[in-house]
């Protein structure tokens, strides 16, 4: 995976076929789990805090639903262009933020399904076939997340 063009509007990446297929496959998995409400405060249990938590969770639920719609449009065939056997993938600045949110959601939810392990403790040979799938998703999402961000940094 290589960043080939960066403008004020967005990015163009060159992916080999394997990476392009993996990215399409991974993003199609989103969301891995149903939305689960978050705690907005650890210490504040007042009436305002309860109402606040409700509002934040409503907003997050709607946001995740919107991410699901965007995940489909990010992976439309026209987003990828093939030239000389290489695949080029374009992302606007906003679309890259969407992509990062989708990838991190997949990574975090996979990690939770695996029992929130410290990474070195994951004995992949001890994982069931089902859990190995989530281990693979977690690693793959981390790989793309890292590259979508680091390639930009490498170019300065």
């Amino acid at each position: 995976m290589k960043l080939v063009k960066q403008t004020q509007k967005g990015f163009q990446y060159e992916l080999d076929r394997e990476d392009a297929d993996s990215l399409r496959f991974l993003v199609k998995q989103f969301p891995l789990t149903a939305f689960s409400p978050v705690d907005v405060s650890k210490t504040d249990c007042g009436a305002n805090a309860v109402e606040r938590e409700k509002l934040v969770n409503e907003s997050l639920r709607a946001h995740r639903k919107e991410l699901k719609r965007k995940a489909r449009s990010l992976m439309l065939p026209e987003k990828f262009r093939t030239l000389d056997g290489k695949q080029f993938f374009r992302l606007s600045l906003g679309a890259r933020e969407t992509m990062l949110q989708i990838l991190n959601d997949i990574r975090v939810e996979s990690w939770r399904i695996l029992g929130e392990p410290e990474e070195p403790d994951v004995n992949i040979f001890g994982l069931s076939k089902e859990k190995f799938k989530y281990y693979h998703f977690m690693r793959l999402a981390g790989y793309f997340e890292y590259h979508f961000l680091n390639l930009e940094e490498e170019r300065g």
Partner: protein
Amino acid sequence: MVYVTHVFMKIFGWERQKAEKHMMEVHEKGKSVLVREGAEKAEFYVQQLQSYKLQATMEPAE
């Protein structure tokens, strides 16, 4: 870790150095106090951080 730094820069508009300082605090201590704001603004930041799947809460000032 580069993801957390990126999200802090994006949401709070911080320079990389400040974002990395807070990211390292999260990495080493498990948490970092990011901003001190009124309830409405704090709620907005919590929602933004959670939308990037970063665990964030808002607590009343001591």
